[in-house]
């Protein structure tokens, strides 16, 4: 076969093709993306259907077995198949956002309480109000899953992120009781550092991924973070908090390169005396520790206050189950309801992982009330826990990153606390609008 194509012909064909592609690309760029279908009304299928479930729990060795067993139990009960997928915690929100926005994911999803605003903004979450009715959730837990009165998430576990200490290291350092004020806290850290052996007294977050922990210290120093619609970062209190953090860093009382995973690793090896975590930590720390008796040495302590008599500042923490509208959504809603409120399921899940349940019945059970660690965590930390003032903003992730980068700049000495906090405050304010 022979054909002659002039170069001009080839250019012409190419130009037409590329022009078409360019127009299609631009048109798509201009075209409004379809609004979320979360509230679309359609008849639910007659019986249970297969659905997808995405979580970060399945990517963590400590939680995977119990979570997989729960998923299997529900699938068996309704004779359906649940396709599971997972992403690591630090990448989870990005991946889930992309999947939901692109319409590639529908079904049930695990969600951190801090992420609800961001995901709900996509307009694809089902209102689970009907599924929450009469299930006995505590009011505080239900509120953690609400936005503007709509129940976008069913509360799975609600607690706080607080300070967890190693009592053995405290005793060795001669610190007989938990420090109640910042001053006592510093003294305790200095005493622990005196033990030597490369111990990091306080494995505070210094990597950007979890440097958001600084916010609760800013609140401890008296900065509200948000006042009305105004960001207060850059005020004297937030500057004092970051100056103090830098002081701890320079004195070697906190260490570089620490995020939650590194802090857990240090704690499990007996290389740190205090770090910030939620009750879920206990399972993973104990699993990774060579010290079989570490569980008995783990004590949750209230965050020190600036002056005696202040209320400790603690950050609310929890997981929700949300349902992304689409194929299998109705059964996914049933699954979310069962996982979070079925009495037998919630108690067995708590027994396996130590994650505090969210229903009155489960909380009153002997399994929960008899758990010394969770009981102490609730009494010392969770009782004072509050949601972060940034969570209500869709751009909260961007805000926390902006603050974290400025705090990191202070720690490495490339910015003063005053300049850095001013820059962070301005960035957050620009995101608030």
């Amino acid at each position, binding site marked *: *076969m*022979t*054909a*002659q*194509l*002039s*170069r*001009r*012909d*080839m250019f012409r*064909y190419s130009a037409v*093709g*590329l022009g078409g*592609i*360019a127009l*299609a*690309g*631009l048109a*798509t*760029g*201009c*075209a*409004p*993306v379809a*609004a*979320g279908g979360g509230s679309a009304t359609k008849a639910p299928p007659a019986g249970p259907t297969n659905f997808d479930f995405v979580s970060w729990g399945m990517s963590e060795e400590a939680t995977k077995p119990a979570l997989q067993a729960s998923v299997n139990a529900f699938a068996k009960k309704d004779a359906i198949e649940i396709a599971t997928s997972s992403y690591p915690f630090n990448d989870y929100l*990005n991946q889930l*956002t*992309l999947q939901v*926005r692109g319409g590639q994911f529908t079904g049930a999803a695990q969600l951190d309480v801090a992420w609800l605003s961001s995901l709900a*903004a*996509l*307009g694809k979450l089902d209102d689970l109000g009907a599924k929450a009715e009469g299930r006995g959730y505590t009011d505080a837990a239900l509120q953690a899953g609400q936005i503007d009165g709509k129940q976008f998430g069913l509360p799975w576990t609600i607690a706080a992120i607080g300070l967890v200490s190693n009592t053995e290291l405290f005793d060795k350092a001669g610190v007989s009781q938990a420090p109640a004020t910042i001053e006592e806290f510093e003294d305790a850290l200095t005493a622990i550092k005196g033990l030597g052996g*490369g111990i990091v007294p306080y494995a505070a977050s*210094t*990597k*950007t*991924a979890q440097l958001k922990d600084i916010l609760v210290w800013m609140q401890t120093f008296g900065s509200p973070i948000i006042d009305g619609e105004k960001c207060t970062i850059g005020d004297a209190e937030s500057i004092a908090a970051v100056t103090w953090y830098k002081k701890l860093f320079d004195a*070697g009382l906190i*260490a*570089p*390169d*620490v995020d939650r995973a*590194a802090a857990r*690793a*240090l704690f499990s090896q007996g*290389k740190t005396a205090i770090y910030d975590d939620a009750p879920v930590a206990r399972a993973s720390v104990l699993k990774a520790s060579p010290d079989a008796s570490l569980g008995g040495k783990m004590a949750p302590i209230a965050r020190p206050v600036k002056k005696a008599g202040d209320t400790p500042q603690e950050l609310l923490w929890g997981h929700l189950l949300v349902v992304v509208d689409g194929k299998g959504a109705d059964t996914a809603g049933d699954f979310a309801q069962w996982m979070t409120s079925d009495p037998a399921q919630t108690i067995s899940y708590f027994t396996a992982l130590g994650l505090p349940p969210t229903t009155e019945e489960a909380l009153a059970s002997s399994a929960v009330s008899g758990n010394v660690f969770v009981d102490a965590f609730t009494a010392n930390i969770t009782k004072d826990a509050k949601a972060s003032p940034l969570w209500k903003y*869709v*751009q909260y*992730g*961007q805000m926390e*990153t902006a603050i974290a*980068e*400025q705090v*990191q*700049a202070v*720690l*490495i000495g*490339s*910015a003063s606390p005053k300049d850095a906090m001013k820059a962070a405050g301005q960035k957050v304010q620009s995101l608030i609008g």
Partner: protein
Amino acid sequence: MTTTTIGRRQKKPHSSNVRAARLSEVRFIVLLLLPGTALLVGVVLYPLLRSLASAFFAESLLYPGATWVGLQNVIDVLQDGFAELLSQTLIFTIGATIVPFIVGLALALVLNEQFRGQRFLRGAFLIPWLIPGVVVSFLWMWIFDANYGVLNGVLMQLHLIDTPIAWLFNTDTARGALIIAKSWNSFPWVMVMLLAALQTVPGELHEAAAMDGAGPIRRFFAVTWPHIAGVAGLVILLEFIWNFQHFDTIFVLTGGGPAGTTQTFATEVYDTAFKGYDLGHAGALGLLWMGLLLILVVVYVRFSERGEK
């Protein structure tokens, strides 16, 4: 008229029947090209144009819809630390190009000599190149970690340091760590390319130069380098282009930190789009980044053409 002839050259057709047959053959060729073109369009061109189009819209990853803003996103990006980002990208790119080139050239010169174990070493030195970039990055993260890293452990065992060094938490050492990690991954490729070029250098020239009294350094610059200069230039240019768009080592090892000081175009575009949910500014940054890359590609094409001539 310049023509592209496919198959055996024929006389120019004149009759309407021949013209019809020719057109149908053209259609057939177009049909053959379609699958490949469709793949190119779907996987490369459409996503590229779609993301470049974002540069001209205020568009969020979270909210539906987009609003035309013209060049505002580009202006914002240029005014908001673009020069700093370019400088950080260039520091990484130049470092991660020069270091593997020097290491690769040195090894190629050694492995071009005949000695016992030479074949084994040629294979062994390829291993870092065979390991996926992400795995390499995690490996180096473990080495450089401040609290349980191997490097600090070794240095402390040797009593060279008393307290651990936070390699990834200091701007200069973090940049150095990134360059070392990336160079470790890419020097074998440089080595292989230069070794191939070295084997084209006629041995007689070396012998003649040696007889004339030229030492090893003189022989390298007078005989070896002129023969491998073309390949070396190509290798440097390609490494530069690849490093200019490199992502995984930086993302895994430092995430652009500390305090954004190792952020490059690649990681900044990712952060803007997927952490800031700001597709408009990410698209604008991508547009500028692609413009700079196109300059490098033009240099590469010119360089290749000159080599062919």
